[in-house]
């Protein structure tokens, strides 16, 4: 279902591609598809409406920057607006501090507590955990087992029913440690006595950070719950858990909008190492179902830097075997070609299916074959006659058919590039990437 959505978003973007004048109807349509994508990712409906309004106004009002088309223009605005929302400063400092965990039942606080302990431990800090969950049976067993695995001291007492008392003793007990994480029992905003308890815990611990743990699958309730938690203990960061499922985590977006904080960490797996620092780009790409823009841009830059594609020659219409060689190499470093194309938000660029068929093993073969060619042949493949083909095949340990296949593939690439150049598109990874990275 989400595939369909992202497809419809891509379709809408496709309509905008190549346009140099802003088309009101097309922008409206895109905004509508964007709304659907965000709502299906569980972003709060009111927030979606506000966002899309801002995006629509900006898209129509702002001057089209020179050299960009409408699609890029709108996409950039979408991206900026979303980044603005999630990207609050959430510096995680490695200094003595106390972290108070808060969240709904079953959102993954205890697991995340252990993961955080591991994270800070790996950064070289002396970490301790206090189990202030006095309600759920087995809670202490759970956290102490997890802590034992990573050699982190865990303070708790399954017999004691007073969370405040445990925490007070725990703080005293672990006062030599640099970083203390207080795990609390799950609660929701309507349970007033529990909200009262966490306010007291906050006062008692003088917590440096109060992090709200949000299940990636949490729906529209996220806003309301986050708001109430924020009122109670002034949440200053959100952790999304269970991102290894299919949930998109839109609830967390609602939550950061409500608490005016940022997303600190993402939990995405069952082992204790499965905790990552938040990366807005990946998150937004997932929300929109559009592939990881930033990661792709970075990988592309890295790959191209090493290779040096002769862009200028290619732009002049000269595309030789040599160019293909370097280009395939560069692309190969970024992963399977089709996947890369899927990651790029470029609806307009339809490459023939054959282009994707070059697998990495084939690329190695191609490279070996090309290594057997003379410089003259590389520059002008037309030179390759049947006797030269025989020689190349023998030199590369390949069959003449493979050489023929390589030449066929080269011709297809050449044709594709010619076509794209004619159509105003620029098949040029470097410039393409530059534009994408310019969007952030």
């Amino acid at each position, binding site marked *: 279902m989400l595939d369909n959505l992202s497809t419809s978003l891509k379709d809408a973007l496709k309509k905008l591609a190549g346009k140099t004048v802003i088309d009101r109807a097309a922008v409206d349509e895109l905004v509508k598809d964007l709304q659907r994508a965000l*709502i299906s990712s569980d972003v709060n409906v009111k927030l979606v409406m506000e966002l899309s309004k801002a995006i629509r106004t900006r898209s129509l009002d702002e001057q089209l920057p020179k050299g960009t088309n409408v699609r890029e223009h709108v996409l950039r605005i979408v991206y900026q607006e979303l980044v603005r929302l999630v990207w609050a400063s959430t510096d995680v400092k490695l200094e003595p501090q106390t972290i108070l965990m808060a969240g709904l*039942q079953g959102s993954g606080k205890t697991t995340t507590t252990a993961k955080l302990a591991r994270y800070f431990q790996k950064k070289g800090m002396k970490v301790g955990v206090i189990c202030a969950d006095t309600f759920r049976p087995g809670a202490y067993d759970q956290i102490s087992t997890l802590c034992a695995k990573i050699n982190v001291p865990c303070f708790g007492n399954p017999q004691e029913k007073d969370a405040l008392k445990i925490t007070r003793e725990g703080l005293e007990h672990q006062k030599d440690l640099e970083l203390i994480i207080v795990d609390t029992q799950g609660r*929701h905003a309507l349970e007033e006595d529990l909200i009262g308890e966490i306010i007291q815990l906050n006062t008692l611990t003088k917590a440096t950070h109060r992090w709200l743990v949000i299940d990636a*699958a*949490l*729906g*529209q309730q996220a806003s309301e719950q986050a708001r109430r938690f924020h009122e109670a203990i002034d949440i200053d960061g959100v952790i999304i858990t269970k991102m*290894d499922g299919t949930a998109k985590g839109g609830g967390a977006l609602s939550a950061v909008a409500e608490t005016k904080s940022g997303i600190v960490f993402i939990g995405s797996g069952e082992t204790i190492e499965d905790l990552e620092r938040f990366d807005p780009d990946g998150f937004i790409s997932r929300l929109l179902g559009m592939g990881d823009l930033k990661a792709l841009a970075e990988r592309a830059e890295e790959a191209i830097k090493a290779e040096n594609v002769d862009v200028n020659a290619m732009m002049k219409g000269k595309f030789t075997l040599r160019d293909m060689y370097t280009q395939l190499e560069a692309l190969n470093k970024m992963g399977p070609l089709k996947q890369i194309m899927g990651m790029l938000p470029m609806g307009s660029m339809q490459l023939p299916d054959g282009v994707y068929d070059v697998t990495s093993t084939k690329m190695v073969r191609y490279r070996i074959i090309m290594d057997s060619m003379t410089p003259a042949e590389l520059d002008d493949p037309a030179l390759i006659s049947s006797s030269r083909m025989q020689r190349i095949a023998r030199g590369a340990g390949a069959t003449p058919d493979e050489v023929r296949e390589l030449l066929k593939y080269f011709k297809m690439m050449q044709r594709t590039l010619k076509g794209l150049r004619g159509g105003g598109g620029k098949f040029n990874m470097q410039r393409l990437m530059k534009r994408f990275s310019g969007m952030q």
Partner: protein
Amino acid sequence: MFGGLKEKLKAARNRLGASIEGVAAKQELPVRETRIAEPDTPKAQQKASSPAPTFVDKFKVLIIDRELIVSEKDISEALSELELMLLESDVALPVSEAIIAHVRTNLVGKHRKIGESVDALVVGALKSALLDVLGKGFDLTEYVRTHDRPVKILFTGVNGTGKTTTVAKIGAFLKKNGYTVVIGAGDTYRAGAIEQIGVHAERIGIKIIQHQEGADPSAVIFDAVQYAVSHKIDVVLADTAGRFHTKSNLMNQLEKIRRVMKPDLIVYVDEAVAGNDAIVRAAEFDRVVGADAVVLTKADMDSRGGAAISIAHTIGKPLMFLGTGQGYDDILPFDPAQVVEDLMGSDT
């Protein structure tokens, strides 16, 4: 938990009612004029309004049957508002669309007697749409009563939805209804899970079969079933570890548990606060191991009950219980007719 949804629906209802009333008022005027100039009703107008009810149709029903026809255009705005309200109540997007489509087909082209209340018409359409989606409830005690003992029930779901707590609650519920129960502690993965269900079982006074952490869950549950057979116990409740539908190894493990246990009932547990993902995972669990009934937990979190509607619509399985709090008694048998009646019935 349906309080929020109820308010929304009421607002939508009024809204729909108003827009149909508006149509009625508008339609009556021109028709009165044509009544005077009856013979020369222009034919072009008839064509213009097809394939929707033609002008003549409208005219005929108004004059002969004294009825009005509701057209799609009249209600489209109100319906899109209703859709937004469903979305705000966590009803997943495709499901909201299905409900709206249902209401639309039920209202559009409908003949309405001039005297008939618009409210009744809208209420009827919404009610039937919701009932259609929610289906029938599931009476667990009735099921246990009419089936061979031991009745084997397997609980599945993703992490943190409240399976273990639900197993304890249903154990307490069945015990209160006079059945004997044994629990199989099938969550051998999560640290502390065995202790958790052990404490629950002890508190409510139910026998529990447990192995060590890391043991094969199929074996634990098999033992629980064997215990039930040899001790003539009425119901076996099998807890399992939470797992994501995307982890094929864990889903295979669940499939193995099902093969070994041969459950009579597979209960899928999810939380009432889940958003759109609820339908993705419910469908996947249903596909891999099946589901016969659904329990929605955390229904006390001021949620609007959208997940209930989403899941019921997606896998077409009845909702059995709602978990409404942290105590063992905080579990409500789910009765869709009653819920819909509650939502729509009291308009005062």
